[in-house]
């Protein structure tokens, strides 16, 4: 069951957002709305899985002196694919994600997994690792977006469907701004740490 561990570790134990604290730039910018967050995590999922597999495949041929540029070239190619694809098929989402879509290139989760995992481990392990990490990122960003959208607009609507109807007439503007994202991350992180400390204490 070692390979299952590679999959689940990114979801809970080494969650890229709450444990590794990586990829905060897109997180702050895009987690204002749940559908933006879903779009971003789809993009990250595709890029992370593809780049991890490719880098793992070529790990014996990439000279270690120039590995970072090689990783960036691979990642940037997949980001370009995602961007062109979204521009063509989901122009509205592409518009809303804006500059943060091409900025997936510098998302530390992707480069971090390439450097720390895919460049050293076999292909299938890297594939599972990327899937686990993507699910962890998705859980984090969508969770934060749920909190922020609910508190900053007073309702939650995903792709036009109202999930939670308006519950407060005067929502907090601050949750829409970057401090709202930092506060949400901080509170969730504190809860996770509180739980794990209590578990250890038992």
């Amino acid at each position, binding site marked *: 069951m070692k390979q299952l561990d590679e999959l689940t570790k990114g979801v809970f134990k080494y969650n890229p957002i709450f444990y590794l604290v990586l990829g905060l730039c897109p997180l702050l910018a895009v987690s204002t709305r749940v559908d933006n967050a879903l779009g971003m995590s789809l993009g990250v999922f595709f890029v992370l899985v593809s780049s991890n597999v490719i880098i793992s495949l070529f790990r014996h041929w990439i000279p270690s002196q120039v590995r970072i540029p090689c990783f960036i070239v691979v990642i940037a190619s997949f980001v370009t694919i995602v961007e062109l694809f979204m521009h063509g098929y989901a122009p509205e989402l592409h518009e809303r994600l804006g500059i943060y879509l091409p900025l997936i290139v510098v998302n530390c989760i992707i480069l971090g997994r390439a450097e720390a995992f895919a460049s050293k481990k076999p292909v299938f392990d890297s594939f599972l690792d990327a899937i686990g990490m993507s699910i962890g990122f998705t859980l984090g960003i969508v969770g934060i977006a749920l909190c922020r959208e609910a508190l900053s607009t007073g309702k939650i609507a995903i792709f036009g469907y109202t999930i939670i109807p308006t519950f407060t007439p*005067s929502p*907090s*503007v*601050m*949750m829409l*701004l970057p*401090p709202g994202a930092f*506060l949400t991350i*901080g509170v969730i992180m*504190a809860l996770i740490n*509180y739980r794990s400390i209590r578990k250890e204490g038992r």
Partner: protein
Amino acid sequence: MPELIVSPSPHLRNDVSIEKIMYSVIIALIPTTACGVYFFGVHVLYVIITCILSALFTEYVALRLMGRKFVMDGSAVITGLLLALCLPPGLPLWMAAIGAAFAIAFAKCAFGGLGHNIFNPALVGRAFLMASWPVAMTTWTKPLTYDAITTATPLGLWKMQNIATPPINLALGNVSGCIGETSALAILIGGVFLIAKRYIDWRIPLSYIGTVGILMLILGQDPLFHILAGGLFLGAFFMATEYVTTPITSKGRIIFGVGAGVIVVVIRLIGGYPGGVCFSILLMNAFTPLIDRHVRPRVYGVKRKSFFVSSANR
């Protein structure tokens, strides 16, 4: 047999405790609170009570979560009261409650509780409410009307329409504004009481208010108006003098006051907000560790550092 207590110096005995100082501050705030209730009606009282209760409750819950004992030392009461005093009189009660809870939970307990906060909790609460509900936070009630006639504050009038309010109104408090910032005189009474009891240092209010007055005079504004208008008095006497978030040395405190004064002038003349007291104190709070590190008192017995001597020795 009496126990022999061996402790390091200073061997001073004083009956000043946290509780005593905190309750003195509350006594010093009574004139200001009374003025607020007199000018804006009974809703103000509800806002104040809501803030205090919410602050106490949040502190209780936070300390329980942290596994500590809740002590009724009055600091949460002060935070709640000070926050209420820098809120607009007509604010909905639930917003006031959230602001006080935020102030205690995030500005105080998240940093480790009493004595560990970096920023003044009441001002953090105000800044949070300001960023969250800007419209409700800038809806001002006209004084002595006791209903929802909205009007602009003296600083707002000055900034938007260039109308100066007579200083006598600003001193007595017959102007719109936050609950506690109407009457400069009432704040002065409480502030002088605290200075006379030596609970707060006169250097911070004097350098803070003095800097604003002198700079405004130099820049061609009416200094008396700018000293009395807005939350400057309340901030200078009750918020910029908080022990934990301000420098500990006398020189450092003067630097703190001057810095905050400069920021107020900059915000009032150039910035987008009419008043800048809240942000000026919060910004200087951030500089407090830096000031404390660079302004150190001379160690007793060490020769005063002379510029010429030290450069010749090098």
